[in-house]
């Protein structure tokens, strides 16, 4: 007996998402991830000056605020013929490290935990946590208390991370000090020291609370190490290169084999997306999502922290060792809990890198190379950056001082892509197909959230 079921809206994510599933005897036979919103930011940028683009692309997403600004600044630097000084390179990496960690904390504690812990059993839980809990959620009062305490403390840590970032970006979200030539801010030695203190505090929280909490949750729900695999193809662009050894290596993981990454293989398909001739067209008959379908050599790819770790020698081994500690095989990395674990491990790596970068900032050296806001420049470039949910690509074309084309492909565009012209479902759709579900579809929400969807980013 086939029947259709849906979660609309799927909450505890950024933006508007709907998931349709076709069920066959308690198993997902077919799935559709449906992006429900369109803003048209790429078009807004055309005809504007390139520096405006840096400010406006930050507003693509309030969750990935600094990631887009940094990607745009990197894309524009060679077009302006400037190279950010060493201080700026350290700051870019430190800000990204802090930013991604804060996002990981919000994703795990505020967005993921309510899927697994019945907070309605805690007397002082806020109202929004009290309704809609699931029957198989953790119910022991001691456990619930523990997780609720971490839930509150994580927001305190996020605020600390924000304070550390604002030393360099001026404010968070949307730091206006980020330019192609570097940072306009001139932090003093004391301020850099305070940023280091806060980063160290955050690192301590990640080691003492976040990572142990992820493992604790994973031990309570071991079944989630074997669901939500998806296509098993990973893509990472590499990044955080301020120090001698880059933190993340670029690479492609296809059919169990590692391959070198070539940006030329990226293509965006729109057969099932609401576009016609590159214009929005919500009445499109075969269309079902605002998200486009990027493919690498025709294949859907997963872009998550799991991919970043898996493709970087050293980090992959670290992840496998942690899995082993939890009694799980290597393949368990490609799963709901595998992704959560990868995120927590990544946070530690990111913060250690951020601390090392902060050590090297010289308060007396320049932090930026100036650019003329009205320069009559032309050129095109592609730049990569990291967002919390995966790796990010910005492509910009400038002619005579004006943006003539802007293209953003975010990790959520890859992960939540619809089918492509050859009918291959997107990674999340594949992760859902075959999933055994209960009548409340709680398993669907858990699989979907393990990809950390950010819908405003994905469509822009």
């Amino acid at each position, binding site marked *: 007996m086939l029947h259709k079921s849906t979660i609309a809206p799927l909450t505890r994510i950024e933006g508007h998402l709907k998931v349709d599933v076709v069920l066959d005897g308690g198993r997902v036979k077919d799935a559709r991830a449906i992006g429900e919103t369109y803003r048209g930011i790429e078009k807004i940028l055309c005809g504007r000056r390139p520096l405006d683009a840096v400010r406006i692309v930050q507003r693509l997403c309030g969750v990935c605020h600094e990631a887009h600004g940094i990607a745009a600044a990197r894309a524009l630097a060679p077009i302006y013929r400037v190279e950010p000084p060493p201080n700026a390179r350290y700051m870019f990496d430190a800000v990204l490290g802090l930013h991604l960690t804060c996002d990981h904390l919000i994703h795990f504690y505020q967005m993921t935990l309510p899927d697994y812990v019945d907070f309605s059993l805690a007397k002082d839980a*806020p109202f929004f946590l009290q309704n809609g809990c699931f029957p198989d959620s953790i119910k022991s009062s001691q456990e619930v208390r523990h997780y609720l305490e971490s839930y509150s403390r994580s927001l305190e840590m996020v605020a600390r991370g924000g304070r550390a970032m604002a030393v360099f970006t001026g404010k968070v979200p949307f730091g206006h000090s980020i330019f192609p030539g570097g940072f306009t801010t001139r932090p003093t030695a004391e301020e850099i020291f305070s940023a280091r203190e806060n980063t160290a505090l955050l690192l301590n929280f990640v080691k003492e609370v976040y990572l142990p909490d992820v493992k604790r949750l994973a031990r309570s729900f071991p079944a989630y190490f074997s669901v939500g695999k998806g296509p098993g193809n990973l893509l990472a662009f590499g990044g955080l290169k301020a120090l001698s050894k880059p933190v993340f290596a670029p690479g492609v993981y296809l059919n169990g084999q590692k391959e070198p990454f070539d940006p030329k293989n990226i293509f965006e398909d729109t057969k099932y997306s609401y576009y016609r001739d590159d214009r929005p067209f919500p009445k499109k008959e075969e269309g079902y999502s605002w998200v486009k379908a990027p493919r690498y050599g025709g294949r859907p790819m997963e872009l998550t922290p799991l991919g970043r770790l898996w493709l970087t020698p050293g980090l992959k081994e670290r992840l496998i060792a942690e899995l082993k500690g939890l009694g799980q095989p290597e393949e368990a990395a490609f799963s709901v809990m595998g992704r959560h674990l990868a995120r927590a491990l990544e946070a530690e790596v990111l913060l250690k890198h951020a601390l090392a970068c902060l050590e090297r900032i010289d308060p007396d050296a320049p932090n930026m190379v100036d650019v003329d806001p009205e320069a009559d420049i032309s050129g095109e470039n592609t730049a990569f950056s990291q967002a919390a949910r995966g790796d990010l690509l910005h492509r910009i074309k400038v002619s005579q001082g004006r943006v003539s084309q802007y293209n953003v492909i975010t990790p959520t565009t890859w992960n939540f892509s619809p089918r492509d012209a050859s009918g291959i479902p997107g990674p999340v759709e594949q992760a859902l197909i075959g999933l055994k579900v209960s009548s409340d579809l709680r398993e669907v929400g858990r699989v979907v959230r393990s990809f950390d969807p950010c819908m405003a980013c994905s469509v822009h």
Partner: protein
Amino acid sequence: MPTRREFLRYCASISIGLFGSTSFTSAIARGFELLKQGKLRVIWLSGLGCSGESISLFFSEDPLFLDFSRAFLDLMSHPLLSTAQGKAYEEIIAEVAAQGEFVLCFEGAVPQGMPEACRVGERTMNQVLEELLPRAKLLIACGTCAAFGGVSAASPETGAVSVIEFAGRKGLLKDYVRLPGCPLPPWRFMGTVAYFAATGKLPPLDEKKRPKAYYARYNHEHCQYFRFFNEDKYTLKLSEPGKCLFRFGCRGPRTYADCPLRPWNGGARWCVNAYTPCIGCAHPGFPWDPQKGIYQNPKRLQPKTVFGEEA
């Protein structure tokens, strides 16, 4: 439990501590009593936007968002936080709406020209708003997209407008507050909500319905570099401390906001003392005319040409 007399004495000492006299004792006591009666019931909705306002609140350090919402709000639903999903989530909203007496906090714009560009569940955001607006006792437009249209309304394709304009066109505009800022800094939201929760009425507003406590003056008037503006000392280079950024196209002289007074992220900075010009993110004109752009060439712009239209 303190006795009534003790309670009033506490209120008097708060009044003395804050204002230097006991004249606000009864107002403070009334505030505490209102808070005791029941917190504000809030529905938070995200429209065509980026959730930047929610994230900005999550980054609030003093007070933390969770502490604040525990003290002042009954946050009934929030798209980034609610445990409930799908139908269960929609039912909570419908239930709260049916009881009335709730505050609607809205971030993002509304795609009036292309309703399909923002859907919640099986309905468009336009339909959800048409249902909720008549029942809300107060609409708080959080952030520049909700207050004036902002970046989302810069797109001609979606025909997006601010939630205020949407409500006005549909004849559904009752009591409302605009809290522009991209993103909205946490203190402007928390201060406004706390005022409403403790007094039962809106704080004093300007003609655009922005609370005067945060939007009565231009950023320029509070700016640390106002002195350099007076002395005609302008920087021609970004990242140069101690000179006015006016010639880069600073929007401080035209933007009503309080950034210089209450620095962001528990630190000491806002844009201008991060040596980057104010881009007027709380201004109705943001993100500005595409031709003129956000930044200007400082060598071209003449001093004392105030940039940007009247707010």
